[in-house]
């Protein structure tokens, strides 16, 4: 399981053998979690950092009137709560959408390893910064895009994120979300979610069958919603640029 963690971090930062050795020395627990189960509740102290190995989860809050807002989808390779492990308590809950395999990394282990391994620290920062960038894009999505573009944008984002972790086959990926999940994510009614997906189908952009979505025309779907993947900071799109930034490469020899 260390392997998954190392691979994840190496997609952001080149690690040395010492870094890898330190990551391999961590004692990690793998948990099987059923679908629609909380990994951690709002108000809990985040003692461990969760890494999703398999399955989908989400960050959410429930308002006083019972309305749920989903703020993030977590897919294989995503850290759940890296951004709050320094804080005292969770300000939101994390729950599974499907059955998940999650790794618990003790908070102390993260603290110890980051104290001695600057590249690991930077890789973790990178993860947290990308999470933030995704959150910003979701804010733009909710505030400024019409319903049909919002959902199309989400489908494009999931395609790229899942592709990066090898979970896309022939432009198809698992789509276990209910209409209510999407409605609670996009700030829409179930009715509008249903109509929008119908529209995307009729335009020949997507097919949705047996909880699998197929993007029939990736370029057209991206153009339809004005999708720009820059905020995902994926390795293949930014790697060469980043390596050419002088002040970044001069700072360390690794």
């Amino acid at each position, binding site marked *: 399981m260390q392997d998954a963690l190392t691979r994840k971090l190496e997609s952001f930062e080149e690690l040395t053998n010492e870094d890898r050795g330190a990551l391999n020395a961590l004692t990690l627990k793998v948990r099987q979690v059923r679908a629609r189960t909380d990994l951690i509740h709002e108000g809990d102290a985040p003692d461990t950092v969760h890494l999703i190995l398999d399955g989908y989860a989400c960050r959410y809050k429930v308002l006083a009137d019972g309305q749920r807002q989903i703020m993030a989808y977590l897919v294989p390779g995503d850290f759940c709560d890296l951004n709050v492990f320094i804080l005292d308590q969770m300000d939101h809950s994390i729950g599974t959408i499907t059955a998940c395999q999650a790794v618990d990394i003790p908070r102390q282990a993260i603290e110890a390893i980051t104290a001695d391994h600057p590249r690991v620290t930077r890789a973790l920062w990178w993860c947290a910064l990308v999470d933030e960038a995704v959150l910003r894009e979701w804010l733009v999505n909710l505030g400024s895009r019409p319903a049909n573009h919002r959902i199309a944008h989400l489908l494009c984002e999931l395609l790229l994120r899942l592709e990066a972790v090898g979970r896309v086959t022939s432009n198809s990926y698992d789509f276990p979300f209910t209409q209510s999940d999407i409605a609670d994510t996009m700030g829409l009614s*179930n009715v509008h979610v249903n*109509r929008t997906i119908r529209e995307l189908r009729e335009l020949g952009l997507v097919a949705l069958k047996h909880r699998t979505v197929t993007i029939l025309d990736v370029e057209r779907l991206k153009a339809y919603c004005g999708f720009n993947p820059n905020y995902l900071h994926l390795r293949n799109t930014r790697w060469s640029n980043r390596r050419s930034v002088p002040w970044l490469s001069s700072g360390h020899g690794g």
Partner: protein
Amino acid sequence: MIGQNNIETLVVLQPIAVDTASPDRDGMLVMANGLLVGVLVRLDTPEHESFGGWFMEAGLGRLAGLRIPAFDTLEDATRWLRRHLKP
């Protein structure tokens, strides 16, 4: 105050065709005490979770921005509206 609680909101529905950019088009203008407060639309597309029900397509005033679950019948909708739009 006691008197006020007894005042019922008069809800009147008036058929109207609605463009929802979908096959759902049979709608009702919803008037509460003579004021337009929303538009209900019947969910005629079988893929809807509440197929056959009535959806508050648009809400005005106190109903603006609310995510109201679809109603099974117009009677349910009217009852809910009376309760939520008490004077």
